[in-house]
């Protein structure tokens, strides 16, 4: 065949193979006039579903930690959570690790000096000299031996950004056991809630067991700028003191004169270290006789041994710590095992002014793990105290379904009764706290009655995990008649299998498949259409090629 005829053939093929979707409107109209509509072609079928194996929703409570119990002489309230706090640790936090029996201390996992309680200075039946020690631990960090992160703390199925946390001083290994990569139960996000009594003489020793320098700054908690010996006591390296280097310690002194819900955090490179997780709630309870407070509430949530003041006014107390995460920052510690590289990447390469926040947590977890351990369990006609902290970088618009709680304090300062506001969205900017009274009287205002009422950030991205919902900081207010024996809420909607599957939060599983069949599953790629487009592209190429040869032949 001559070059000319080859050119003509490929030109004709180009015209014929042009995908109908690319035909210009007038061409399409003309073709329709001549030939009518094309014959029916079945669209590609839905992709077959991938097999998946969901995690256990609610692990069995083999140790009997959920029931109410008395350990030593500490009364520990029942927990309806699927992952209840270790009651032995609660007992040790209340009495002091120096005052509990050796068996209790061993089952608490704490060291003998983790929280020591001494003299009763005002003679009112509770200790007023408290010495708390906190270490710094890394979660989901790098290893020179493993491609997986080590000392793992997933915030949702398969979601493991790196964290730095203040941690109670515990004896032994950082993981569950030598074979496991998972962090031991009390080594977790968020940094523990610290709870003290107003007027106590408190020493907090930061034992910097981490490879970076850190400090503790007490935000809103009454403390002197320097301690009695003139040493810095405010935790701020550019104003009061040098950072505490790896392997070193420093003791901060506080005698808070005012009660309230406050905040503590590292103040070394705060735009990075606070956002790595070095932040926690700090509660100062009102002074009362015989008031043994639970010095740490690990993981936040229900306070199983509430203070005297809270017991008198409220039926239950919950600590809620909200925190958002930019994975670009939190994954830096997984990208290298060299602290010099990590420092350079964090300080000089990472730019928080370009940050977008991807993950949203309450008490260190995202949905669905929040349903395991961060539900607010209530009964009708109760008064429940919620202490809320927004430790995140962005604002929080916390909405309570079915309830309108009342704000009793802003940033630890009580609101006078006539000025108290009752509403259903609470806007907290970074570092702000509110104390809420949740009244479960079914009056159509404070409560709409029993149920599983979601509680979440109403800035919609906060209800997602890196853009996939439901995720983020969704938890719920749950009434007893809607919570099963094991603590799992008796939902009457969608099955949870997908949400407890790692692949779901990687965007690999279709949402509604479990009950809508495959009608919303993504379609299989249509090879027929692809082939036509490919043939069209080849014809275009051939036309151009033969056209060029014709032109060259002429000259």
């Amino acid at each position, binding site marked *: 065949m001559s070059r000319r005829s080859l050119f003509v053939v490929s030109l004709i093929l180009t015209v014929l193979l042009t995908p109908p979707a690319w035909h210009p409107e007038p061409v399409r109209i003309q073709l329709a006039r001549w030939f009518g509509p094309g014959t029916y072609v079945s669209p590609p079928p839905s992709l077959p579903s991938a097999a998946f194996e969901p995690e256990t929703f609610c692990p069995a409570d083999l140790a009997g930690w959920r029931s109410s119990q008395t350990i030593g002489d500490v009364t520990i309230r029942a927990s309806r959570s699927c992952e209840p706090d270790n009651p032995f640790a609660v007992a040790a936090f209340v009495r002091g690790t120096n005052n509990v029996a*050796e*068996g209790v*201390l*061993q089952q608490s996992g704490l*060291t*003998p*000096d983790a929280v020591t309680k001494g003299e009763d200075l005002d003679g009112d039946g509770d200790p007023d000299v408290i010495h708390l020690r906190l*270490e710094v*631990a*890394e*979660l989901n*960090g*790098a*290893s*020179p*031996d*493993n*491609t997986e992160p*080590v*000392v793992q703390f997933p915030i949702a199925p398969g979601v493991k950004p790196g964290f730095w946390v203040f941690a109670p*001083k515990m*004896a*032994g*290994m*950082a*993981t569950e*056991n*030598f074979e496991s990569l998972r*962090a031991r139960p009390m*080594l977790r996000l968020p940094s523990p809630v610290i709870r003290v009594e107003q007027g106590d003489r408190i020493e907090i020793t930061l*034992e*910097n*067991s*981490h*490879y970076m320098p850190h400090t503790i700054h007490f935000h809103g908690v009454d403390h002197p700028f320097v301690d009695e010996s003139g040493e810095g006591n405010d935790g701020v390296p550019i104003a009061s003191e040098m950072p505490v*280097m*790896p*392997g*070193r*310690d420093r003791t901060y002194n506080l005698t808070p004169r005012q009660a309230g819900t406050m905040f503590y955090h590292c103040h070394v490179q705060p735009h990075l270290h606070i956002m790595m997780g070095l932040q926690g709630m700090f509660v100062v309870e009102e002074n009362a006789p015989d008031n043994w407070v639970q010095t740490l509430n690990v993981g936040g949530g229900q306070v199983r041994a509430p203070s005297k003041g809270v017991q008198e006014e409220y039926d239950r107390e919950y600590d809620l710590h909200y925190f958002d995460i930019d994975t670009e920052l939190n994954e830096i510690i997984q990208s*290298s*095992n*060299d*602290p*010099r*590289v990590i420092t350079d990447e964090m300080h000089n390469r990472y730019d928080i002014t370009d940050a977008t926040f991807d993950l949203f947590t309450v008490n260190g977890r995202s949905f669905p793990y929040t349903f395991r351990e961060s539900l607010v369990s209530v009964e009708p006609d109760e008064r429940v105290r919620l202490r809320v902290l927004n430790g995140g970088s962005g604002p929080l618009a916390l909405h309570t379904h079915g309830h309108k709680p009342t704000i009793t304090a802003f940033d630890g300062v009580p609101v006078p009764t006539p000025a108290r506001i009752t509403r259903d969205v609470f806007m907290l900017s970074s570092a702000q706290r509110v104390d809420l009274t949740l009244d479960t009287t079914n009056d159509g205002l404070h409560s709409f009655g029993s149920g599983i009422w979601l509680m979440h950030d109403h800035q919609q991205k906060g209800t997602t995990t890196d853009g996939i919902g439901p995720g983020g900081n969704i938890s719920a207010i749950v009434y007893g008649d809607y919570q099963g024996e094991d603590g799992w809420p008796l939902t009457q909607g969608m099955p949870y299998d997908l949400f407890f599957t790692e692949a779901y939060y990687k965007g690999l599983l279709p949402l509604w498949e479990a009950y809508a069949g495959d009608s919303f599953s993504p379609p299989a790629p249509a090879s027929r259409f692809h082939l036509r487009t490919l043939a069209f592209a080849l014809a275009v190429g051939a036309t151009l090629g033969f056209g060029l040869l014709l032109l060259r032949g002429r000259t």
Partner: protein
Amino acid sequence: MIAAVLLAAAMATSDGQTTDAMDAGHGHMHHMSSPTHQVESHQMEPSHHHHAHQMNADGMVMNANDSVLPRDCQEISEDVSFEIMAGTEFAHGPGDTFGMSQHNLEAQPCSRITVTFMNHDDIRHQWMVHGLPRYLYPGGMFHLEANGGAAITGTFIVPSDRKTYLVHCDMSQHMEKGMKAQLKVGGGDGDLWSIPGISENYIHANDSGLTIGQALGAALLAFVVVLVVPRWRRKGP
């Protein structure tokens, strides 16, 4: 079943006997000091628990055993003692934060090893051996933990096989950032990965200084040279 009986026997024995080991440790501790801290040692109170686990203000010893022979040992071949100092000042190389004074230890099969672990930092550190026979050491582990500035002594007996045991501090990131060592019994069965000063990291950092793009550029350059040079030679300058 037999293992369970042996384990119970071993635990019962070690409960009674670790006090002696502690005394021995205490005896030779007095003359030791460190550049930064006066390292103190106190005698451990014996534990009355079923755990082979003793804790005091200085730290703890777990699964101490100075008398029960591993099944494969007829007798104790030798008594060895190691004095291990630990902390940030013993970090081995650039990029390490923590370390130990010795990252490689050698002992004879069936030897009785007494370790005095002296912590020169203000924070906790651990000296933990893994891979010991589980019928004798719950979890296969012998563990010393020393509080800041404290020293802890404990004794254990190794079996007869040639084996390299992992020794580390299991606090989060301490092994990763330098507190990793090995104990070679009978010459050991090779080195472990990532031992500071001894073996390289299993996971390599990209330390070549070249990006993949630069490396491909270099490859392209070589390709062009290979094509061009023979032509230029054929034609002559």
